[in-house]
C-alpha cells in the first residue's frame, strides 16, 4: 500500500511537470482502493461523472482518476507515453484512429465488443460510445423577423441578404487550434461544396473564431453571436430551452461524430480498463435514448440527413501533413480573406 501511495504521489508530481495542459482533474471512489484506473479524456468531468459513478457503484474497491485535456494534448500524451493512462476517451475520431493505427492502442475483445455494430468499432481497438451531430446554434433575437433557416443553403442566402445584421456576429471553430472543428470541416468539405461557400460568406462577415463549443453557445445565449456554426450537438442540447438558443440540425446533411474510447498500449491496468470499457460501451449500446444511450444526443435531427463519420483509415488522410497544410491554407484564405 505504501508503494501504491508513493506511486500515486509520483503520478501527481509527474502530472505537474508534464508538457500537456490539464484542464481538469478529479478523483472518484475510495482513497484506499486496490485498483486505480487512470482515464484521460476530452469530455468535461461533469458530463462524464455519472458514467464513472455508475461503474463504481457495481465495482467496489476501484478508484478512478479522471484527467481532462484537449484532444491534441490527449493524443500527444499517449504518444509521449511519459504518463501512463488506462483509458483514453476522445471526441477526435481521427486522432483516436491514428493512435490505434500507429500501434499505440491495445486490442480489446469481449462479449460486449463483439456485439457492437460494425460502425461502432475499429480493429477491436477503438470503440464508439456516443454519436453527436454537428449543430448550428442560432440566436432568436438576431433572426427576429426572418424565417429561421433549415439548411445551409437557406443560411447562406440569409447571411448574404443581411450582411449588416450579421457582420461580426458569426462564429465557428478555429480549426487551426480545434481538432474537432477540423474534423467537422474536413468531413463537410468531402460531402458538399456548400461548405466552402458558407465559409466564404462567413469570412466576408468577419467570422469570429473559437476554440470550443461551450464558449460559442455562451456567446449566442448572451446575444454576442447570431450564428454559431458547427457546435457539438451534445453541448447545444444541454442548453436547449434557454432563451435565445435555437438549435438547427441542417436538413441538407448533418455530420455525426463518434466519441470513442481506447486502451493505450502503455495501460498499467488493462484488465480493469477493459472492464470499464465494456461497462461504458455496453451501457451506451444497450441504452438507446437512456441516460448513457448512444442515441441520446441525436435530438430533433433528421435521420435521413445524418451522415455518420466512418471510423477508419480514411480519417488519416486529413491528418496527413501536406493535406492538413493545404486544407488549412484554403480555409484560412476563405475565412480571413486577407
Amino acid at each position, binding site marked *: 500500500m505504501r508503494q501504491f501511495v508513493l506511486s500515486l504521489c509520483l503520478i501527481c508530481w509527474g502530472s505537474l511537470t508534464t508538457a500537456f495542459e490539464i484542464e481538469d482533474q478529479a478523483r472518484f471512489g475510495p482513497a484506499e482502493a486496490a485498483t486505480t484506473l487512470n482515464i484521460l479524456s476530452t469530455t468535461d468531468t461533469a458530463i462524464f461523472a455519472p458514467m464513472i459513478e455508475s461503474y463504481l457503484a457495481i465495482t467496489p474497491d476501484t478508484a478512478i482518476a479522471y484527467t481532462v485535456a484537449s484532444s491534441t494534448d490527449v493524443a500527444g500524451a499517449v504518444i509521449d507515453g511519459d504518463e501512463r493512462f488506462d483509458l483514453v476517451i476522445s471526441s477526435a475520431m481521427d486522432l483516436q484512429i491514428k493512435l*490505434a*493505427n*500507429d*500501434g499505440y492502442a491495445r486490442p480489446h475483445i469481449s462479449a460486449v465488443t463483439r456485439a457492437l455494430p460494425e460502425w461502432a*468499432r*475499429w*480493429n*477491436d481497438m477503438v470503440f464508439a460510445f456516443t454519436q453527436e451531430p454537428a449543430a448550428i446554434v442560432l440566436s432568436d433575437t438576431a433572426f427576429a423577423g426572418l424565417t429561421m433557416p433549415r439548411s445551409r443553403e437557406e443560411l447562406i442566402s440569409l447571411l448574404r441578404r443581411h450582411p449588416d445584421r450579421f457582420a461580426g456576429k458569426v462564429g465557428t471553430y478555429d480549426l487551426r487550434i480545434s481538432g474537432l472543428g477540423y474534423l467537422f470541416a474536413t468531413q463537410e468539405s*468531402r460531402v458538399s461544396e456548400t461548405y466552402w461557400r458558407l465559409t466564404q460568406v462567413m469570412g466576408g462577415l468577419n467570422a469570429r473564431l473559437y476554440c470550443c463549443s461551450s464558449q460559442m453557445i455562451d456567446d449566442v445565449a448572451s446575444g454576442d453571436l447570431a450564428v454559431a456554426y458547427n457546435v457539438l450537438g451534445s453541448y447545444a442540447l444541454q442548453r436547449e430551452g434557454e432563451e435565445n438558443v435555437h438549435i438547427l440540425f441542417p436538413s441538407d446533411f448533418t455530420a455525426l461524430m463518434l466519441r470513442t474510447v481506447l486502451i493505450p498500449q502503455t495501460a498499467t491496468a488493462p484488465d480493469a480498463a477493459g472492464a470499464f470499457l465494456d461497462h461504458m460501451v455496453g451501457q451506451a449500446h444497450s441504452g438507446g435514448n437512456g441516460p448513457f444511450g448512444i442515441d441520446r444526443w441525436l435530438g430533433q435531427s433528421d435521420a435521413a440527413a445524418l451522415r455518420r463519420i*466512418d471510423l*477508419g*483509415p*480514411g480519417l*488519416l*488522410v*486529413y491528418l*496527413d*501533413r*501536406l*493535406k492538413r497544410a*493545404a486544407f488549412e491554407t484554403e480555409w484560412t484564405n476563405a475565412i480571413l480573406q486577407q
Partner: protein
Amino acid sequence: MTAPAVAGSIRRRLLVMLIGSAGLLAVLLYFVVQNVARQVAQQSQDNILSASALSVIDSARTVDGELTVDLPYAALSMLDSVTDERVFYTIRFGEEVLTGYADLPRVTAAGAEATHLSAQYLGEEIRIAAVARPFSTDLGRELLEVSVAQTLSGQRESLARSSRLALSVGAGFFALTAILALLIARATVRPFERLTASISRRGPTDLRPVTAPVPQEMAPLVASLNGFMNRLEASLNRSEEFIAEAAHRVRTPLAVVRTKAEIIQHNVKRQENKAAIAEMIAAIDESSRTAGQLLDHAMVSFRLDRLAQEEVDLRALMVATVDRLRPMADIADILLETGVADAASVKGDPILLQNALQNLIDNAIKYSPAGTAITVALEQEADGARLCVTDQGPGLPTEAQTSLTERFVRGANAAGIIGSGLGLTIVEEVITAHGGILELSNTTGGGACASLFFPSA
C-alpha cells in the same frame, strides 16, 4: 466339409485401396484449393493496394514548379472497406520523405507497375505496394515514390474462410468417393457371389458345366472348374459301372455256390456240419442280395440321370407291386394287403417308382415278425398324393431316422437280419428326383410307417 483357408478379402482390399487413394486425393485437393485461395487473396489485396497507390500518385501535380500531392480520401478509406485494417503510407520525392511514415520499409518501385512486398511493421505483418513516377520541379527531375501498406486481417479472414471451404470440399470429396468405393467393391465381387450361388444351388449329383456368362477375368477359373467337374463325373460314372459290373459278376457264381451248398446240406448227416452250411447259405444270401441292390442302385443312378417324364398311375403301380411281393410275404407268414386306394398319378419313371415302393415293402417284410400284417395305402391329400407302407414290426430307432437313408447305414436294431443298407438310399434318391419326400416314422401301436409323399405340382 472343411472350410477353405481364407487369406484376405478382395472386397476389403479394394475398399482399402480406393478409400486410401480417395483420402490422399482429398488431402491433395485441400492443399491445392487452399493454395489457390491464398494466391487469390494475395492477388486481390495486391490489386487494391496498387489501386490505392496509383490513386495517390495520380493526385500528384507540379504547380509553379513545385510538386503537390493531394492525398485522396478514398486512397486510404478503400483499404478498410471490407475488414478493419491498419494502413500506412509513405510519399518520397527522391530521397526526401514528403509525408507519411518515414520508417515504413522501402520498396524500390520499378515504374508504372506496382511492386509488392510483405514485411513487418509496428509488430504486425503488412503488405506493401509501391509505385513510382518521375516529376520535374525547380529542383530537378526526381522520382516520386508512393508506398501504401495495410495489415493482413482481411487476407487472414478470407484465408480462414477458404480454408474452411477447402476442408469441406476435401471432406465432401472423400465422403463421396468412399461411398463410390463401397459400391465399386460390391459390384466387383458380385460375379464371384453369383458363381458361388449358382454352384451352391445345384443338386448333389449335378455336375454339368457352368454355362452362365462370367467376366473375362473369371473365365479361366470357370474353365478349370468345368474341367474339374467333367473329370469328377467321368470318374463317378466309371466307379458306378465298375460296381455294377462287379456285382453282376459276383451274383452269378454266388447262385451256383448256393445251389451246391444246398445239395451238400442235404447230403451231410452230422448236425454241426448242417448248421455250418446253413450259416454259409445265409452269408451267400446276404452277399447275393447286396450285389442285387448294388445293381439296382447302379440302374437307379443311370435312370435318374435321364429321368423319364411319363404319366404314372400310382394305384395300378401299388396294386401290381403288392401282388408281386405277396408270395414273398406268404413265405414269411406275413399278411400283405392294400388299404385305402385313391386314384392318383405322378409324372416320372414307372420302373424307378416301382423299385422304390418295392424296396419299402421289402424292408417291411424283412423287419416284420411272422404273423403280423403290412398295409400299403395310397391317399390323395389336399396338397399331394401319399403312398404309405405300415408294418407292425419293431419300429425305427428314433434317434437315427434321417441317417437311415444314407448308404450302408442300418438301424441299430437290425442285427441278425439280412440287408445291405442300400434300400432306403435308393428310395430317397428316387423320391427326391421326382420332387417328393420320404418320411419315416413310428406308428402309435408299434411298428414303422414309411411313406412317399408326392406334392401336387
